[in-house]
């Protein structure tokens, strides 16, 4: 009984009671004391933060969880009668105002349920709050508040989501391989089978057999090419345990233009660059090299016949990310007709251009995504193409 009175004070119970004698030998006081003690034990042992506020946002009750968390996160000693958000008003007035508005909404009758994030001692936590009005005869007299630490659950949820996203991505890659194997890898093998069938065919003329033989080399070369493509794709999709190094965009462009010098000279291509906004980055160099190489080659390959292709490459930083833009004045693509297919494997869009095997933009996209980036294309037939890459 003595303990209870002390605890009762600690909890700031200020309720006045009238005592009446009830039946069964117990007084109303005894029953009330018993009930309050049970309630107190429940509040203390619920494993969550529980507190209540009056109309003026002052604490009327709180359990030791609240006391400890406020001590830990904000280093304050909370007392009954304190205004709940007062300690925030000097250091963090925005947060203080936010809490005032939340509690005011609950005092107006709303039942609130929300999650807040806190950081203390380098530890990030997610706390779920339930704030409900306390009603006495239809009149709101205060607020009952419960806060539960859901950090573990939230982190587990995020982990599960990451795993699910990863699996989806891998599944998509597997579908791509299945497609490549069924169509592109099997096609030259079917070539060879067809050639062998013809060579065995009793009715086939010697001339036919001779012709069939001449196709063997072509079929085997194509088989080799598909296996090399498949290998490139698999390597590009490997997770980023790849070596990262500092890459300067300007020197990357010089390197590439030197390696395709004859193509540039033959086409008369003019490449202008502006990397002042972001001269370089730390990244997986071969991936970024592939983006620059494929996009520059595409702009030259698919330029308007009889014109000198102009290619403008620029970079800038935006919200901690690198934005690369490749702009040309070439043939352009009908995006309304082709849509997402422009990034498809072994897809081609310029029948009038003999070159090209339909892997360039696919590889660019694969490399961008392997680095966690995004790619977008804007194009208009006869005007040119702009590729924007966000890394």
């Amino acid at each position, binding site marked *: 009984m003595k303990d209870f009175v002390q605890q009762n004070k600690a909890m700031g119970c200020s309720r006045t009671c009238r005592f009446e004698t009830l039946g069964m030998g117990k007084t109303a006081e005894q029953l009330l004391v018993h009930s309050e003690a049970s309630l107190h034990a429940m509040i203390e042992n619920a494993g969550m933060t529980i507190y209540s506020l009056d109309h003026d946002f002052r604490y009327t009750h709180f359990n030791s969880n609240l006391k400890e968390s406020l001590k830990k996160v904000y280093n304050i000693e909370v007392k009954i009668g304190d205004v709940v958000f007062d300690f925030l008003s000097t250091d963090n007035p925005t947060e203080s105002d936010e809490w005032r508005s939340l509690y005011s909404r609950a005092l107006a009758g709303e039942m609130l349920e929300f999650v807040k994030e806190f950081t203390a001692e380098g530890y990030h936590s997610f706390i779920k709050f339930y704030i409900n009005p306390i009603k006495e005869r239809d009149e709101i007299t205060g607020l009952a508040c419960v806060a539960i630490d859901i950090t573990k659950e939230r982190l587990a949820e995020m982990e599960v989501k990451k795993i699910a996203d990863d699996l989806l991505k891998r599944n998509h890659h597997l579908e791509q391989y*299945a*497609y490549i194997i*069924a*169509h*592109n890898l*099997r*096609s*030259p*093998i*079917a*070539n060879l*089978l*067809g*050639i062998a*069938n*013809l060579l065995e*065919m009793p*009715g*086939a003329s010697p001339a*036919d057999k001779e*012709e*069939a033989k001449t*196709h063997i080399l*072509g*079929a085997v070369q*194509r088989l080799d090419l598909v296996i090399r493509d498949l290998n490139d794709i698999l390597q590009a999709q490997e997770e980023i345990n790849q070596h990262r190094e500092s890459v300067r965009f300007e020197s990357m462009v010089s390197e590439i233009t030197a390696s395709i010098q004859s193509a540039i000279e033959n086409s008369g291509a003019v490449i202008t660059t502006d990397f002042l906004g972001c001269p370089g980055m730390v990244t997986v160099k071969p991936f970024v090299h592939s983006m620059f190489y494929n996009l520059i080659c595409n702009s030259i390959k698919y330029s308007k016949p009889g014109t000198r292709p102009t290619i403008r490459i620029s970079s800038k930083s935006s919200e901690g990310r690198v934005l690369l833009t490749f702009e040309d004045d070439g043939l352009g693509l009908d995006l309304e007709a082709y849509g997402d297919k422009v990034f498809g494997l*072994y*897809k*081609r*869009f310029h*029948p009038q251009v003999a070159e090209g*095997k*339909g892997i360039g933009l696919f590889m660019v996209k694969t490399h961008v995504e392997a680095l966690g980036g995004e790619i977008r294309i804007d194009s208009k037939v006869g005007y040119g193409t702009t590729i924007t890459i966000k890394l």
Partner: protein
Amino acid sequence: MTSERPLFILIDDDPIHNAISSMTIKNVIANVEVVVFSDPKSGLDFLNEEFASHESDSVVLLLNLNMPFMSGWEFLEQFSGLSSEIQERIRVYLLSASIRQSDQAKAGDSKWVRGYLIKPLSVEGLMAL
């Protein structure tokens, strides 16, 4: 006036398959005419133009699926826009290297496709058409 001479139309971007299929067809079917298009678009142009004056009453179209500019599926979409006189004269078969069930199932859904042949085009496959 109709002609008894059968006509085979091959639509495939792969020159080796076209060469092998043509030779196989000519070896199996007597007095046959084979026309080859490496691009589905020129195949459609042929059906829209020259084909009207073509007299053969036995016309088979062998269509590849996986092609870089226009896929076989896209060709079939365009095919459904042709006049019914053209459509009714042609028996369309898919001739693909793909051994995927999903491609064969999709072929079964197409109104125009009579069958699915797996490359290379074999004598038995050809006889069964």
